[in-house]
């Protein structure tokens, strides 16, 4: 049975259905101390004094630390800019930023002591919106002195970009559609809250974290504590959901410092509320002006995008630059101008989140197309068809050409919702594409060990957070080496064992780690061929075990292959390199809106993804469906609501609603388009983010049609829909 393209049973599934799988919070270290963070419940405050004496008297407390106890100057960390202090120093910049940390024998003692820490603080005005971030009179979120040599240091603009081509201002268009779009502040809400452990060890320090990028964490911890990388070990248990929220360091540098300072293992498990305060998606306001010919061809795209980041940069600037760069989507445009700003605010640091800025851009750009279609009397499927590039065509003059037959996705998704059939009353249909740039410059290294008995081990730094990386990489090794999957072990998540990998992000791992594994297997096979040549009586079709026994003799041994794959860093390119491949998905839907209440029922949602080759079809479909339901979340129900003081008002699962099993579409179809035209193993591309890109504009168009409204800010709640209908009716009276 072919291994590639078979839906091999997921590795790790059995452990998960029996409760044996060890997530970070399940790890027990002997002698570990429990940690609790102390933070303020307002966004921006000056710290006058922190009283810890009473808290320190709780039996079992081993230490209470504030910024004063840290090395001076206070260590700062961050994946791009080291702007974030281990503990708030003099000033807090977001609700949930820790001002003190308690370490105690038991969780109860730590929690009791944390409640007794008294912080004398003065609440300060906070920047909480795009408008206030752009206001020249607003307080500065970051200290200009710490942004030396940055011409934007006296603003809340972290960074800004302008991309594009042609001459937008002199372009002539028959129809110009101009609108403002808003994408809400949402949070990852992985079912596993964050948990971290750290302990001193013989080499230096070990950090356990369900991080998606063990090697990023390693270098950031090392840098924050001025340790050599070689002395920092990261052990990364499989995350219980990541979605980008577990990509970039949060409290690990602090935990590493505590472990070294106390010379004891330390453990911190965040509550769900603390997790909400720790990571979120950047919200965005996008002003879109799109020019069309009478036949619906895009003459120009003129976009101004403001992304609201949080108090610290994290990976936020990259989110904005990457998404803006390809914001025009999978379409030809004679002219384009994209002006984008990454804005700081006194809120939870925004970080990577599935789609990496593109959901925000797609919401605007695809909605523009839908509106133009209506205005010009052109079918929304057809208007897209007219603007899609041919495979191989450079639709963005500076980047990778179209690498798929993208029209196929459009056709399949439309067919699955019976696009041309008559619509019942109160119903609407919508369609949208979503295009994401994958990895630009990155590197993956894999080691494959062929053991003496003909079994093998694969060592790689990819993180399996539910997408099934373990399974797919074993399938690849099995295929390449001709070994049964159940005779292959895969080791991940330990920087002292597995070699370097840039990250598990950008849907890159099947392609890059997959290619690295193939490369490592090729090295093993080359060595095996040499062994055959050098071993008397050996032949190519001997089982590995017999060959290696003959070759190594009683002392035994193994054959090790190292493989590498990546895409080249291009210093002149604004993103550091071109997209290795494009991830494209089409979403089409049919919805019903209750005209009296605004409630939305999604009858059908159809997805079609251009994946090159599905190495494990079940896993790809499962990822696409999951992404689509996550997309339904930000489309219909998710939004973090901030109070005037910058606190998150709907902190926790009671009032932050994500789709439950009763909220899924009544019918959900997913199709995979496989033309073996990707750069990955066997012609594969990456997948898994598409649903978050394409669902919003499809649902948005359908809802707007069904309800007779035009809503351009998400989420489309029943109340919002009802209010829009009611406003229309009043106007019509």
């Amino acid at each position, binding site marked *: 049975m072919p291994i590639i393209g078979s839906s091999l049973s997921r590795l790790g*599934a*059995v452990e*998960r*259905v*029996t409760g044996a799988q060890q997530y970070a919070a399940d790890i027990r270290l002997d002698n570990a101390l429990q940690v609790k963070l102390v933070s303020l419940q307002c966004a921006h405050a000056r710290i006058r004094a922190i009283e810890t004496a009473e808290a320190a008297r709780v039996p079992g407390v081993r230490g209470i630390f504030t910024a004063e106890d840290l090395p001076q100057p206070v260590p700062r960390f961050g994946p791009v800019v080291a702007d974030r202090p281990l503990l708030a120093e003099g000033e807090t910049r977001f609700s949930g930023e820790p001002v003190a940390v308690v370490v105690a024998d038991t969780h109860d003692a730590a929690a009791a002591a944390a409640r007794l820490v008294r912080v004398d603080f003065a609440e300060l005005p906070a920047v909480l919106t795009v408008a206030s971030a752009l206001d020249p009179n607003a307080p500065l979120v970051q200290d200009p002195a710490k942004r030396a040599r940055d011409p934007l240091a006296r603003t809340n603009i972290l960074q800004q970009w302008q991309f594009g081509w042609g001459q937008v201002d002199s372009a002539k268009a028959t129809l110009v559609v101009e609108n403002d779009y808003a994408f809400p502040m949402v949070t990852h809400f992985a*079912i596993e809250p964050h948990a971290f452990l750290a302990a001193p060890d013989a080499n230096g320090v070990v950090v356990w974290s369900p991080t998606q990028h063990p090697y990023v964490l390693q270098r950031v911890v090392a840098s924050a504590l001025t340790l050599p990388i070689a002395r920092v070990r990261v052990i990364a248990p499989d995350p219980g959901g990541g979605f980008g929220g577990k990509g970039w360091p949060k409290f690990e540098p602090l935990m590493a410092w505590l472990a070294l300072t106390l010379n004891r293992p330390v453990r911190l498990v965040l509550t769900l509320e603390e997790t909400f305060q720790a990571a979120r998606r950047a919200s965005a306001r996008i002003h879109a002006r799109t020019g069309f010919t009478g036949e619906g061809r895009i003459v120009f795209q003129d976009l101004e995008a403001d992304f609201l980041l949080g108090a610290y940069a994290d990976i936020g600037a990259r989110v904005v630059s990457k998404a803006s760069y390809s914001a025009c989507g999978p379409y030809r445009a004679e002219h384009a101008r994209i002006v984008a700003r990454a804005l700081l605010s006194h809120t939870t640091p925004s970080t990577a989140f599935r789609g990496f800025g593109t959901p925000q851009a797609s919401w605007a750009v695809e909605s523009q197309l839908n509106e133009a279609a209506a205005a010009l009397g052109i079918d929304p499927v057809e208007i897209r068809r007219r603007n899609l590039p041919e495979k191989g065509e450079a639709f963005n003059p500076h980047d990778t050409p179209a690498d798929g037959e993208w029209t196929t996705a459009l056709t399949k998704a439309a067919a699955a919702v019976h696009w041309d059939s008559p619509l019942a009353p109160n119903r609407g249909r919508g369609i949208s594409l979503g295009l994401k740039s994958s990895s630009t410059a990155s590197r993956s290294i894999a080691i494959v060990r062929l053991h003496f008995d003909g079994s093998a081990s694969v060592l790689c730094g990819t993180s399996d957070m539910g997408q099934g990386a373990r399974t797919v990489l074993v399938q690849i090794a099995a295929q390449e080496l001709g070994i049964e999957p159940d005779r292959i072990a895969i080791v991940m998540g330990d920087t002292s064992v597995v070699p370097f990998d840039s990250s598990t992000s950008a849907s890159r791992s099947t392609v890059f780690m997959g290619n690295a594994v193939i490369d490592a297997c090729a090295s093993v096979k080359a060595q095996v061929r040499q062994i055959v040549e050098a071993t008397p009586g050996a032949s190519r079709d001997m089982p590995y075990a017999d060959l290696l026994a003959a070759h190594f003799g009683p002392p035994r041994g193994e054959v090790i292959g190292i493989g590498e794959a990546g895409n080249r860093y291009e210093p002149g390119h604004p993103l550091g390199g071109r997209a290795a491949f494009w991830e494209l998905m089409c979403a089409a839907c049919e919805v019903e809106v209750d005209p009296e209440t605004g409630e939305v029922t999604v009858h059908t949602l159809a997805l079609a993804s251009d994946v090159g080759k599905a190495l494990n079809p079940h896993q790809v479909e499962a990822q696409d469906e999951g992404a689509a339901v996550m997309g339904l979340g930000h489309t219909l129900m998710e939004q973090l609501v901030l109070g005037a003081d910058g606190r998150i008002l709907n902190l926790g*699962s009671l009032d932050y609603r994500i789709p439950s099993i*009763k909220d899924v579409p009544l019918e959900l179809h997913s199709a995979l388009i496989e033309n073996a035209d990707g750069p990955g193993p066997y012609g594969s591309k990456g997948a898994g983010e598409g649903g978050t890109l394409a669902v919003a504009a499809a649902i948005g168009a359908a809802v707007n049609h069904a309800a007779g409204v035009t809503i351009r800010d998400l989420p489309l709640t029943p109340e919002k829909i009802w209010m829009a209908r009611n406003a229309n009716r009043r106007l019509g009276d």
Partner: protein
Amino acid sequence: MTIVLTVNGSPRTVECKPHHSLLEVLRERLSLTGTKECCDEGECGACTVLLNGRAVDACLVLAVECEGETVQTIEGLAENGRLDPLQQAFVETGAVQCGFCIPGMIVAARYLLSTNPHPSEDEIKEGLAGNLCRCAGYSRIVSAVSLAAERGQGQRQD
């Protein structure tokens, strides 16, 4: 306080404080970490266990309330290391992604099938309405429960 309760078929004696939830005691005192902690307020279902045969959120039960009672967790489902039909079905249908919601999901499904051995799709959704998943589209989870029902999961004694 010292309490005695039956967990996965065995009597267990546990030291705990009155304010400790059953979830905390299972995870921290009994080292049964299969049951997960997420929202801690009965909204997500990750901590679902069977208490006297009924599915409950362990975060909303004080450990001391369980004196003399019977608790079954995900670890108690597989007999002699063999997966039960529900566990098997979850593996086969590809319902498992990151897996964090899965123990709660399976225990809730187990309860559903014990009260309704042949549920419709809507009844499955009702039965699992208290279990959140962020990875999946839920459809394979529904398929897994249907498949297990077909294979007679509901007829097994708890």
